[in-house]
């Protein structure tokens, strides 16, 4: 079974802490994405990456950074967590190429609470 694995399902952190959310996919996908999901706001794109060491800002990149050192791994970093970053974080991946339809494969999500 193809899989996108997020390292932590639930995290509780304190304001100001540095937080790492890890995502690994085993489908050899070129593209990886980080979304956050909040009630009433739907899914919003934070950052995405089309290749190793490449990153692009999504709709809401402020307060976040990412790292893609290997093709299968895409990390989301909160340099100094704040309470308004309490949310569900979803990682996704997809194939690239002109035949790609953009179908995303999602991980199970990481629910982060910042106190």
């Amino acid at each position, binding site marked *: 079974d193809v899989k996108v694995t997020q390292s932590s399902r639930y995290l509780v952190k304190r304001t100001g802490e540095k937080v790492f959310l890890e995502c690994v996919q085993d489908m050899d996908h070129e593209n990886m994405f980080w979304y956050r999901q909040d009630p009433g706001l739907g899914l919003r794109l934070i950052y995405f990456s089309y290749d190793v060491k490449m990153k692009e800002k999504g709709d809401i990149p402020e307060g976040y950074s990412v790292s893609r050192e290997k093709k299968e791994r895409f990390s989301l970093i909160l340099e100094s967590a704040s309470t308004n970053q309490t949310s569900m974080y*979803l990682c996704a991946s997809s194939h690239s190429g002109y035949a790609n339809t953009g179908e995303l494969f999602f991980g199970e999500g990481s629910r982060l609470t910042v106190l």
Partner: protein
Amino acid sequence: SQQGEEDPQALSIQEGENATMNCSYKTSINNLQWYRQNSGRGLVHLILIRSNEREKHSGRLRVTLDTSKKSSSLLITASRAADTASYFCATDQSYSGAGSYQLTFGKGTKLSVIP
């Protein structure tokens, strides 16, 4: 920015009834996708319809697309309690040039199927 908007926000039906959810979008698209999310889990791809298609079926799912009205509908026939979930439409907002599409999600319709 939000591209697709689902309607209604919430829908409650009896088992065996049909469920219809609608999605409207603003700009031209190459394809439109529907995803399902069980509570607290990641999203799962259900079906994709291309801009040159008007209707598509997959099991109990029927999707229609009207590009002139910039709208799509998802019909689930003979619903089951296990269909209880949130349903999202997603459209390809832009072509990155790297061979992939960036999807933009609506806020979702929460479907409850009562046994």
